[in-house]
């Protein structure tokens, strides 16, 4: 510390003055004014960014990858996924969900469902603008809203989606009755 009393006070003033002036003249916005003016300008989200899960389908919505194996349902830490498998008239399971609900008021966006899914069927979205008016019913996302195309997946996370496509190509959709592979 200096012997000169008051030097610390002046030093502080110099720093704040530098920041004040710098905020007007710094070319690189990230150096000083790091805030994004949200509705007008948007941050480019990194590819890994995750919010709520969605279900991927190939081509048309009825070709969804999910086989209703319920692995994500059991692994989900806050237990916010609810799945009912579709059955035909004879009660035979159809390897696809009839009900797939995610309570996004409970979901904590951890991404474990996407990690454990052996079929690459459930993935994490980047869409964060999900506010709704209702606290309960509106925040329960049902199957139709959860379905997103593979193209959308490519759009938000191209590298990851390409990687997934490469691993999926040979097998396509596993035949009924095959056990999910270990991960």
């Amino acid at each position, binding site marked *: 510390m200096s012997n000169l009393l008051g030097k610390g006070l002046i030093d502080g003033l110099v720093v704040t003055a530098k920041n004040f002036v710098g905020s007007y003249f710094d070319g690189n916005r990230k150096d000083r004014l790091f805030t994004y003016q949200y509705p007008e300008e948007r941050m480019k989200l990194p590819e890994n960014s995750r919010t709520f899960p969605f279900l991927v389908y190939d081509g048309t919505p009825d070709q969804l990858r999910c086989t209703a194996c319920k692995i994500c349902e059991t692994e989900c830490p806050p237990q916010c996924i*609810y799945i*009912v498998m579709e059955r035909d008239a004879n009660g035979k399971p159809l390897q696809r969900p009839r*009900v797939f*609900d995610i*309570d996004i*008021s*409970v979901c904590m966006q951890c991404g474990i469902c996407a990690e454990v899914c052996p079929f690459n069927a459930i993935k994490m979205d980047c869409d964060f603008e999900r506010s709704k008016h209702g606290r*309960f*019913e509106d925040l*329960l996302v049902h199957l139709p809203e959860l379905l997103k195309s593979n193209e959308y997946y490519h759009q938000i996370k191209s590298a990851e989606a390409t990687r997934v496509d490469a691993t999926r190509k040979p097998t396509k959709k596993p035949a009924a009755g095959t056990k999910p592979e270990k991960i």
Partner: protein
Amino acid sequence: MPTVEQIREMLSAGAAKSSLLVEREDLLAVAKFLKTDPQLQFDFCSCVTAVDYIKQDCIEVVYHLYSVALKHGPVALKVRAPRALEQCHVPSLTPVWRGCEFQEREAFDLFGVKFDGHPDLRRILMWDEFVDHPMRKDYIPPMDYEWEPTPHGETLARAKMQGGTVPASALEAKK
């Protein structure tokens, strides 16, 4: 019961994974010994907690001790008490290590272990009027919570089936 020399040897040699299960009556003496013994000098009580072994019908209080002076440890000092609330007493180690104060209060709060000789044994995390001890394995949540009705009627019913108790008001709120 090992002798003092055995304890000393055991702990100061490779004190990587040693634990001591002592009787309740001996706890305070053992603690003081561990703290003051020049070869051990466990002057730092890192972690205090309780475990509810419902099958063995006992609650085990675990103290993890380290030595700041000699930089060794940990030793887990364990003591067991019966589960029954009125018998669930353990001597407090707060007079030996001040750092136990809040953690013993927490163990009392969540497990119902009474620490004899604790200077200020009150609930710490739960509110004062709360009656039960929520970390016990046989704890049943009371019905008087302000229930957030989960929107999914079926999930709700399933939760009910799995043993969770759901107040009727929540089901009504659903309708």
